[in-house]
C-alpha cells in the first residue's frame, strides 16, 4: 500500500469511525472531553504508525482499542495529580464490568446524539456538539458552517460539554415515555447535519460532504427502527433519501451546482427513490395529518416521480407548499413556494410573491438567487445581474457560486 492509499484509508476511517469511537469511549468513561481527546490521539497515532506498519485489518477496532488505552493513561495520570479521581479510576479500570442497562435504543451513537441534543442545551450548541462528537468535524469547520468565529464556536462547544458534565446530563437514550418529546429536537439537528452535508459551506470544503449526509441518514434509520410509528421520523428519513438520491446529478463535472430541472434524471439513485416513495406512501396510508418533514418528503416524492422535468405535477407541489405554509408560515417556506408558483403561474406572479419577502430575507442568498432567476426569465437583465451578484456574495457553497456566476455571465449586456 503506498503513502497515498494509507492517507485515503486514514481519511476514510476517520469519516466512518470517528462517531463510533467517540461514542464508545463516552459510554465507557462518561466524559465527552476524555472521549474526544482520546479519539483524537488515536487518530494521530494512526497517522504516525499506519504508513510504516500498514493499515490494520480492522481499522475501527484498532482505533477503539488505542483510544481506550489513551483514555485510561490520561485518567491514571490525572488521578495521580488529583486524589479525588482515584475512586473514579478504580471503577474505570474494572474491565469485566457488566454493561449498564441500556434504554430502548442500543446504538451508542444514538445515545450520544440524544446527549448532544438534550433540551437543556441551547439549540445552536446541540448542532455544534453533534457535528463535533458524531460527525468528527473540526471546530473550524463547524464555525465556518455556521458563520461564526472559530473562538466563539470553540467556546460554545466547551461550554456545552462542561454543562453535560457539571449538571450531569445523562448519557442515555430517553425512556420510552419521554422519547417522543425528545425526538423532534433530534430530528431538527439531523436535518441540519444533513443539509450541511448536502450544501456544504466554506471555500475550502467539497460542495457536497457525503460523510455528513450519510451519517444523518444512518442515524435517521436507527431512529426509525426504534420508532416505526413516528410519522416525522419516517418523513425526515424519506426526505433525506429522496434528496440524497439526486446527489450525484447535482454537481457537474465542472464543479457547478446543477438545478433540479437540469439534472440528468438517469443519474438519480433509483433504489433510494423507491425506498423514499415507499415511506411517503406508508405515511399517506395512515391518514394522519402530516408534519413538516412528511410534507417536504411528499414534495420531493412529486419531483422524483417525474421522468422529465416537464412532467412535474406543479399543482401538486404548490398544494403541498400551501399545506406547509399553514404549518410553518416562515419567509423561507414562502420563498420555496414561490419557486413552484413560477412553474405553475409564471415568473411574473412568482416575482411579486418573492419581492414581498425582501425585508425579511435580504441576507439569505437563495432569496437573491431565486429573484435573479425570475428576473432573467422575464428579460430584466440588468436587475438580474445585480441580484446574481448579491447571491454570489452571500452564497457559501462553491458549486452554487460557480453556477450563479455562470448564469450571471450569460446575461446580455443590458
Amino acid at each position, binding site marked *: 500500500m503506498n503513502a497515498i492509499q494509507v492517507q485515503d484509508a486514514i481519511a476514510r476511517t476517520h469519516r466512518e469511525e470517528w462517531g463510533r469511537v467517540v461514542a464508545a469511549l463516552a459510554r465507557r468513561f462518561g466524559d465527552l472531553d476524555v472521549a474526544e481527546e482520546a479519539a483524537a490521539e488515536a487518530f494521530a497515532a494512526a497517522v504516525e504508525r499506519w504508513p510504516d506498519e500498514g493499515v490494520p485489518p480492522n481499522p475501527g477496532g484498532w482505533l477503539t482499542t488505542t483510544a481506550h488505552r489513551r483514555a485510561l493513561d490520561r485518567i491514571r495520570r490525572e488521578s495521580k495529580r488529583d486524589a479525588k479521581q482515584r475512586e473514579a479510576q478504580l471503577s474505570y479500570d474494572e474491565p469485566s464490568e457488566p454493561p449498564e442497562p441500556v434504554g430502548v435504543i442500543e446504538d451508542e451513537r444514538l445515545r450520544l446524539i440524544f446527549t448532544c441534543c438534550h433540551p437543556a442545551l441551547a439549540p445552536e450548541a446541540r448542532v455544534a456538539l453533534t457535528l463535533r462528537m458524531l460527525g468528527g468535524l473540526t471546530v473550524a469547520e463547524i464555525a465556518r458552517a455556521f458563520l461564526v468565529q472559530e473562538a466563539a464556536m470553540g467556546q460554545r462547544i466547551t461550554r456545552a460539554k462542561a454543562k453535560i458534565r457539571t*449538571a*450531569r446530563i445523562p448519557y442515555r437514550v430517553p425512556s420510552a415515555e419521554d422519547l417522543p418529546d425528545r425526538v423532534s429536537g433530534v430530528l431538527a439537528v439531523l436535518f441540519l447535519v444533513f443539509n450541511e452535508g448536502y450544501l456544504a459551506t466554506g471555500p475550502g470544503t467539497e460542495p457536497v460532504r457525503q460523510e455528513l449526509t450519510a451519517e444523518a441518514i444512518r442515524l435517521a434509520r436507527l431512529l426509525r427502527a426504534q420508532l416505526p410509528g413516528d410519522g416525522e421520523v419516517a418523513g425526515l428519513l424519506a426526505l433525506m433519501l429522496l434528496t440524497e438520491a439526486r446527489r450525484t446529478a447535482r454537481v457537474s463535472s465542472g464543479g457547478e451546482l446543477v438545478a433540479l430541472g437540469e439534472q440528468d434524471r438517469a443519474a438519480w439513485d433509483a433504489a433510494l427513490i423507491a425506498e423514499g416513495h415507499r415511506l411517503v406512501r406508508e405515511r399517506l396510508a395512515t391518514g394522519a395529518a402530516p408534519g413538516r418533514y412528511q410534507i417536504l418528503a411528499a414534495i420531493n416524492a412529486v419531483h422524483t416521480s417525474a421522468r422529465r422535468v416537464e412532467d412535474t405535477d406543479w399543482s401538486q407541489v404548490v398544494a403541498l407548499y400551501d399545506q406547509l405554509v399553514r404549518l410553518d408560515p416562515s419567509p423561507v417556506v414562502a420563498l420555496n413556494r414561490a419557486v413552484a408558483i413560477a412553474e405553475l403561474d409564471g415568473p411574473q406572479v412568482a416575482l411579486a410573491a418573492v419581492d414581498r419577502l425582501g425585508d425579511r430575507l435580504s441576507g439569505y442568498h437563495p432569496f437573491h438567487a431565486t429573484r435573479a432567476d425570475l428576473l432573467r426569465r422575464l428579460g430584466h437583465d440588468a436587475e438580474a445581474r445585480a441580484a446574481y451578484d448579491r447571491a454570489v456574495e452571500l452564497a457559501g457553497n462553491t458549486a452554487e457560486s460557480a453556477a450563479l456566476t455562470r448564469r450571471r455571465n450569460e446575461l446580455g449586456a443590458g
Partner: protein
Amino acid sequence: MQYLLSVITDSAALADDEEAAAIDVFNEGMQRDGHWVFAAGLAGPDNTTVVDNRGGQALLTDGPFVESKEYLIGFWIVEAPDLDVALKLAAGGSKACNRKVEVRPIL
C-alpha cells in the same frame, strides 16, 4: 447528586390555598421517593439586606443584590441521579406552585 430548584416569581403574592395544597402533595411525593433534602419559602425582596464586609467594615444595603422584575421566592434542594430526573422534579414543582423553577447543580 443534589440540585437547587429555585422558585421564580414576579408578583408579591404568596402561594394561595390551592397552590399550597399542591405543594404539600408534591413535597410528600418527593419524600416518599427519596428526592427530598430541604425546602423553604423566602420573604420578598423588600425584606432583603445585602452585607458587604470585604472592605473590613460591613456595609449594609437595603434590598436584594440585583433588582429585577423576577426574584427568588423559595427553593427546594433535591437529590437526583442526573439532570433528567432533576428536570422532572422541577416540572412537578413548577406545576404545583404555579411558578417558574430554575434548576442548578450543587457542586
